[in-house]
C-alpha cells in the first residue's frame, strides 16, 4: 500500500495520463468502429439472408458461410490470420487498420446473427399482413418488422458491444497500442501492476458503463413501444 501511495504522483504524470488516454481512445475507436460497421453490415447481411428470391441463393450461402466461420474462430486467431494475410499481401503496415478490419469482420458476423434472430422473432402474420397490403420488402422491414424487432435485437447487441470493448484488448497481441497494451508498457516501466491494471480497469469501466446504460435505456424505450 505504501508503495502504491509512493508511486502515485509519478504514475499520474501528465505524460502517463496522455499515454493512457490515447490508448483508451484507441480502444474506444476500435470498439466504436467495430460496432458501427458491424451493426451496419450485420443488419444488411441479416436482411439479405431473410430474402426469398432464388437469384440471391448464392449470396445467402456466402453469408451463412461467412457468419458461421467468423463466429466460431477465436478473436485472436482471426486477428493473427488477418495480420499475416495483410503482411503477405503487403496491403498495409498499419496495425491499427489490421485490428479495425478484424473487429469489423467479427462484429459483422455476430451482429448479423443477432439481427437475424430479431427479425425471426416477429410473427409471420405481420409479414403476411404487410404483403397483402402491397408493402414492398423494404417498406415491410422499415415500417413493420424492425420497429418490433428492436426490442429483441437491443439486449444481446449491447451485451455484445460491451464484451467487444473487452475483447479488443487482444489487439495488443499484434502490437496495437490499446488500453491493455498501454498498461503492460507502464508495468514494464516499473509501476506496480496493481496500480497500473487497477487504473486500466477503471478506464475500461468508464468506457463500457455509459454504453450499458444507453443499452438499458434503448431496451426500455423499445419494449414500451
Amino acid at each position: 500500500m505504501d508503495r502504491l501511495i509512493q508511486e502515485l504522483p509519478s504514475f499520474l504524470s501528465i505524460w502517463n495520463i496522455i499515454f493512457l488516454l490515447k490508448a483508451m481512445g484507441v480502444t474506444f475507436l476500435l470498439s466504436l468502429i467495430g460496432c458501427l460497421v458491424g451493426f451496419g453490415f450485420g443488419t444488411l447481411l441479416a436482411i439479405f439472408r431473410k430474402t426469398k428470391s432464388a437469384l440471391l441463393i448464392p449470396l445467402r450461402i456466402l453469408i451463412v458461410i461467412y457468419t458461421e466461420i467468423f463466429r466460431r474462430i477465436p478473436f485472436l486467431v482471426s486477428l493473427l490470420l488477418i495480420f499475416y494475410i495483410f503482411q503477405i499481401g503487403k496491403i498495409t503496415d498499419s496495425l491499427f487498420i489490421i485490428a479495425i478490419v478484424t473487429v469489423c469482420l467479427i462484429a459483422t458476423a455476430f451482429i448479423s446473427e443477432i439481427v437475424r434472430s430479431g427479425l425471426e422473432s416477429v410473427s409471420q402474420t405481420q409479414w403476411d399482413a404487410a404483403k397483402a397490403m402491397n408493402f414492398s420488402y423494404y417498406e415491410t422491414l422499415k415500417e413493420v418488422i424492425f420497429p418490433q424487432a428492436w426490442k429483441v435485437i437491443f439486449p444481446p447487441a449491447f451485451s455484445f458491444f460491451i464484451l467487444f470493448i473487452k475483447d479488443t484488448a487482444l489487439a495488443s497481441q499484434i502490437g496495437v497500442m490499446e488500453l491493455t497494451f498501454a498498461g503492460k508498457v507502464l508495468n514494464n516501466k516499473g509501476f506496480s501492476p496493481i496500480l497500473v491494471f487497477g487504473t486500466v480497469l477503471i478506464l475500461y469501466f468508464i468506457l463500457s458503463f455509459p454504453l450499458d446504460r444507453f443499452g438499458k435505456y434503448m431496451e426500455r424505450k423499445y419494449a414500451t413501444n
Partner: protein
Amino acid sequence: MQQIKISDSHAYYGDLHVLNNVSLSIDKGEIVSIIGPSGSGKSSLLKLLVGLLLPKSGTISISNKIIDYTNKAHLNYARNKTAIVFQQYNLFENMNVLKNVCIAPYKIQKRNKEEVEEQAIKLLDKVGLKNKLNSYPEELSGGQQQRVAIARALCLNPEILLLDEITSALDPELVKEVLDTIRVLASEGMTMLIVSHEMVFVKELSNKVVFMDEGEIVDFDTPQNIFESPKHFRIADFVGKILK
C-alpha cells in the same frame, strides 16, 4: 359482371396439395361464403387471391384482368383490388389503431394524409372504435382488434373484401359486434368472399355458398340448396354436424 374468376387452379404448400382444380366465379356485389371442415383449403383460397399463396397452374382473373402472380405489376393490381381480414387480425403491433388503418393508404397507395385520416376516423366510427384511435392492439379486446382489421381493410378502398374466419377467435358476445359490421357492409353492396363457421350468418347473408373439402370445391350453390337439399353426402354430413 364477374369480379373474380378462378379456373382450374392448383396450389401447394411444399408438397401438400392445398387447392385442387378449383374453379369459381363471383359477380360484382355478390356475397359468397366458403364453408367446409378444417384443412379443406378455405383460407388457402383467400390467400391465393391476394398472392400469399401462389398458384401452380390455372388462371385467376380479378376485376376483368388475368393475374400473373409472378409479375409484380399484376400482383400490385390484385392487391389493390382486394383487401383481406385475417383470422388472427394481424394488426401491426408497433402501431396504434389510427396508424394501423392509415399506413397502407398513405404510404403505399400514396394518398393524401389528411384525406386518409378523415376516412380512417369515419370507418373507425362506423365500427364503434372512434374512441380508441390512440390505443395499441395489445390494449384492445379480440372483437375490437377484429373491427380495427375490418376498418383497415376498408380504408384501402377495395372492390373485393376477403374475410377469413373473422369470428372464430372471438368470444360469443364479441361475435355479434363483428357480424353487425359485416351486415352493414353487405347492405352497401361490397363484393365479399367470407370463410365462416357461423352458419346462421352464412345462411342469412350469402348469395352463394362454396363447400370445400380436401382442397376441392365440392359444391357451389345457393345457401338454400346447400343447407336444405345438399347434393353430396359430404355436405350433408358436415351441415348435419355443424347445425346440431
